[in-house]
């Protein structure tokens, strides 16, 4: 049988089996299956024999025989069946340990709570996103049609599809009950009490309310979207427009027509849609009569089609139908590869990668990013726990030794530690929830459309939190558990289980450096964004925004208003403009410098004295002739960027004239030095200043007043005397600009939170380590003191290791921050910002050192100032 000897049974199965049986005596069983394998090998061949071997191992593993043998193998005097008592004991020991080492417990709970809070937030948001659209009763029958498009340049999957797909499929396939077409891009501007109110919404099919479970508070769900120019408002919009009045039947004027309110619906909650108003799909056809949406097989952007299937329809049926429709669509787009697919309503968000998504389009990558930020804060806290627990080995080693001597198994020691850690993390969860609630409210305010997400504590969320906490507990507890269960009882009881030095091992050093590195990076981030923010208000746009009061004209007689306001003694000068400087400009205008090429530019209409009042610098020409425009030629101001853009085309010709898309001939009267009319986060684009009071929307008053409140009320009186109807809604330009930079404030907030958490966790870790090392060195310090060391020497001795570690982390963090913030992040945030300065780095570093010292000062001075005689006597 020499040849069969080489053919061995599968080693993997045997190993797993041996591991599974642990200490049970299975020699004869192994022999049996081995022999059976050899027997089968001869009869049936290698493959079958191996297969049978696997099956036999499996059958044995779950057989009574093994259970019995394992049980009898683990029997000992101290191992009883009474698990409950044992678990009880684990908890008791854990609680005793917590109360015995209050400082450590507190440090760990605080650190873990902070670390977990950000994770809880990101988990909460993720859970809410995953729960989106779960509330629709017919969610299983509603499918969104997606479009995969590929051409030579690449491929993409779009959440949108051709508008014609909807009607085409509804007509052709009987299993479709309804197709719901949704077109985004409904941006009505309502004139309401003299104010222009902007809203965003969709053009949707009549069946919208039939398919989706959105509740109408007022109005008939079946008829609300039946006619063109009908309008459904969400509750909050209805409340701002009509307080205490039933809005049904009210009309709202827009540029494109008069809308009638036919319904008010609940505010959006837990859905992937994001809109404030809805109008019927018919409206789109009425507004844009030249487009024929129903037969449009070419435009796939911003059209969404949802199919409501009849109950019992197989998904395969739908897939087949979509394949046929794809082929049909391909006839209209020969250059494209088209594949239509569908996704169930409750799975529309989050997706991994989808273009042109409906609403916000929550995606998995950003969720992952958010979660990893949370983990980045949590990890140091977990490391701290691990570090501190292992560092306490000295005090706990004897306990473990005794446990082992009286018969505790390795597994039991492990469970003991895991129970302790899990218990601690659950305490931390309570703390984290206290941080989570305010953090969530901040978050909901900060992130666009976050109010749609329901992050209140529901069952799924609580379950997720508990699971997460459990996982964190196991993860932080596993290393201490492994460490302690491996201790040799004889050595630990003799007291030389490990080195007695209070030093910090290499891996711990690494974790320390990492923590402080992270903290410093976050602090530098927060400080440097704060600097960007300050920079914005230091007149760095290129115009003067101080003491400028803005008043929207509304329907007042503009010229009269300007003349009257100018007469007030505190008003230095009045001008007007269509857009506020420092705020984003909507849209662009096309113009041609040479009758054939076009460039696009931003345009702003200004009144008299605008250039002077805002101190805008001209590099060439003058601004006075702006008001002398004639029928034939309009004088305008442009910026240097404009000249750059035009230069490309006009080489020989007169470069000072151009024609706007509407045929207006313009002549450049002056060139402005480039300045940021828009926020600093925007690139400077070609810009045209045209003179027109009629097109201006705001009166801009340069005020010089000692009592601003009285001045404003006096101005309001003047305003009211001109026109009773018009409201006087003044605001300082600086405040308006401030609002345009809300994103900076949001960033500052985020970074402040992150850095506060990171620093606190690191300092807690530092405190824990220092406490531990100083405690272990009590006697050493006492002896040193008796031998004549002064407190300075002792401070140096106790802190030098940690200071060195902080120094190392600073040395890594500073270049990293410089590279990351100055070259990437800040540039991305503000194109024309000041970048990262030396000052911020220095301030942040000093701040970090300061906090580090504060956290260790108490411990070191306690031990250095103690009476050495008492410390030496204490045993």
């Amino acid at each position, binding site marked *: 049988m020499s040849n069969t000897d080489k053919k061995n049974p599968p080693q993997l199965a045997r190993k797993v089996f041996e591991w599974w049986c642990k200490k049970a005596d299975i020699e004869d069983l192994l*022999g*049996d299956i081995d022999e*059976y394998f050899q027997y089968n090998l001869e009869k049936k061949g290698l493959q079958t024999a191996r297969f049978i071997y696997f099956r036999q191992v499996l059958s044995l593993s*779950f057989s009574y025989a093994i259970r019995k043998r394992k049980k009898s193998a683990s029997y000992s005097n101290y191992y009883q069946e009474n698990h409950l008592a044992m678990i009880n004991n684990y908890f008791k020991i854990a609680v005793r340990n917590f109360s015995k080492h209050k400082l450590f417990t507190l440090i760990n709970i605080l650190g873990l709570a902070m670390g977990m809070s950000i994770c809880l937030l990101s988990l909460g948001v993720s859970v809410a996103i995953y729960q989106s659209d779960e509330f629709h009763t017919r969610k299983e029958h509603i499918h969104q049609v997606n479009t995969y498009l590929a051409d030579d340049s690449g491929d993409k999957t779009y959440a949108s599809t051709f508008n014609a797909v909807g009607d085409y499929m509804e007509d052709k396939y009987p299993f479709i009950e309804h197709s719901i077409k949704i077109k985004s891009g409904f941006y009505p501007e309502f004139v309401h009490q003299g104010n222009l109110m902007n809203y965003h919404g969709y053009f949707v099919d009549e069946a919208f309310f039939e398919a989706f479970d959105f509740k109408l508070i007022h109005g008939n769900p079946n008829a609300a979207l039946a006619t063109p120019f009908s309008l459904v408002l969400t509750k909050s919009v209805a409340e701002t427009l009509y307080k205490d009045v039933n809005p049904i039947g009210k009309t709202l004027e827009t540029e494109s027509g008069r809308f009638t309110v036919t319904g008010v619906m609940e505010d959006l909650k837990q859905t992937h849609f994001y809109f404030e108003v809805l109008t019927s799909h018919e409206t789109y056809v009425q507004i844009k009569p030249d487009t024929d949406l129903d037969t449009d097989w070419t435009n796939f952007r911003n059209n969404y089609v949802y199919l409501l299937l009849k109950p019992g329809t197989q998904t395969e049926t739908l897939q087949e139908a979509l394949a046929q429709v794809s082929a049909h669509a391909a006839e209209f787009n020969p250059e494209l590869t088209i594949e239509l697919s569908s996704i169930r309503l409750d799975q529309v968000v989050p997706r991994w990668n989808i273009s042109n998504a409906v609403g916000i389009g929550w995606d998995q990558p950003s969720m992952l990013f958010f979660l990893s930020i949370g983990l980045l804060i949590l990890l140091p806290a977990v490391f701290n726990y691990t570090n501190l627990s292992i560092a306490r080995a000295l005090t706990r080693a004897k306990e473990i030794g005794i446990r082992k001597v009286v018969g505790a198994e390795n597994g039991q020691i492990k469970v003991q530690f895991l129970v302790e850690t899990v218990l601690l993390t659950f305490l931390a969860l309570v703390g984290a929830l206290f941080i989570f609630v305010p953090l969530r409210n901040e978050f909901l305010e900060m992130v666009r459309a976050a109010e749609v997400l329901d992050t209140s504590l529901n069952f799924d969320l609580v379950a997720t939190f508990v699971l997460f906490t459990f996982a964190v507990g196991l993860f932080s507890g596993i290393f201490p558990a492994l460490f302690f269960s491996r201790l040799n009882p004889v050595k630990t009881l003799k007291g030389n289980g490990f080195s007695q030095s209070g030093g910090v091992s290499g891996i711990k050093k690494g974790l320390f450096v990492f923590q402080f590195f992270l903290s410093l990076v976050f602090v530098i981030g927060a400080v440097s964004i704060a600097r960007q923010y300050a920079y914005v208000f230091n007149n760095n746009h290129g115009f003067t925004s101080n003491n400028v009061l803005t008043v929207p004209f509304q329907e007042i007689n503009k010229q009269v208003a300007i003349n009257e306001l100018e007469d007030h003694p505190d008003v230095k000068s009045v001008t007007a403009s269509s857009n506020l400087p420092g705020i984003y400009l909507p849209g662009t205008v096309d113009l041609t410098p040479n009758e054939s090429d076009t460039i696009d530019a931003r345009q702003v209409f200004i009144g008299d004295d605008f250039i002077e009042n805002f101190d805008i610098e001209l590099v060439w020409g003058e601004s006075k002739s702006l008001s002398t425009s004639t029928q034939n030629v309009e004088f305008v101001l442009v910026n240097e960027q404009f000249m750059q853009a035009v230069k490309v085309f006009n080489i020989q010709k007169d470069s000072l004239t151009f024609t706007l898309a509407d045929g207006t001939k313009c002549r450049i009267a002056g060139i402005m030095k480039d300045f940021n009319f828009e926020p600093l986060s925007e690139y400077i684009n070609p810009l045209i200043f045209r003179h027109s009071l009629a097109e201006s929307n705001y009166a801009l008053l340069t005020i010089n007043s000692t009592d601003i409140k009285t001045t404003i009320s006096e101005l309001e009186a003047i305003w009211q005397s001109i026109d009773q109807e018009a409201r006087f809604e003044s605001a300082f330009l600086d405040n308006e600009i401030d609002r345009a930079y809300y994103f900076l404030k949001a960033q500052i907030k985020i970074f402040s939170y992150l850095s506060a958490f990171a620093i606190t966790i690191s300092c807690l870790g530092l405190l824990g380590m220092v406490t531990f090392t100083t405690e272990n060195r009590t006697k050493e310090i006492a002896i040193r003191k008796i031998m004549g060391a002064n407190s300075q020497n002792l401070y140096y001795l106790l802190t030098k290791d940690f200071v060195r570690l902080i120094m190392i982390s600073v040395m890594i963090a500073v270049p990293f921050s410089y590279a990351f913030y100055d070259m990437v992040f800040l540039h991305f945030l503000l194109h024309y910002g000041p970048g990262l300065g030396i000052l911020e780095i220095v301030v942040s570093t000093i701040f970090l050192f300061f906090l580090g010292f504060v956290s260790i000062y108490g411990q070191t001075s306690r031990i250095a100032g103690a009476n050495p005689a008492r410390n030496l006597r204490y045993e």
Partner: protein
Amino acid sequence: MKGYLGEFEELVLLTIANLGEEAYGVALLRDINERTRRNISIGAMHSTLTRLEEKGYLISHLGEPTNERGGRRKRYFELTSPGIAGLNEMKSLRDELWANTKVKLSV
């Protein structure tokens, strides 16, 4: 003696009696599988053996290590007197039922 032997239990005990000195795991398994043309797994058989041993119908002991099976010892099974009594009880019960049958059972 509580309860009767199960069908498979009886089969195992009888096979042990048949194999005599050579009654160990694989031998039993192969014998039963060949005779009954079933496909019993080792796990099922050892479970039954364990239960029978618990009930006291058989005892087991490990043999000497040999060159076979990688030097692993075999576990041999032997019937005990309760085991033999149990088998006899089953047989007499069966004989009694055969004797009193009112339908012609022979084929």
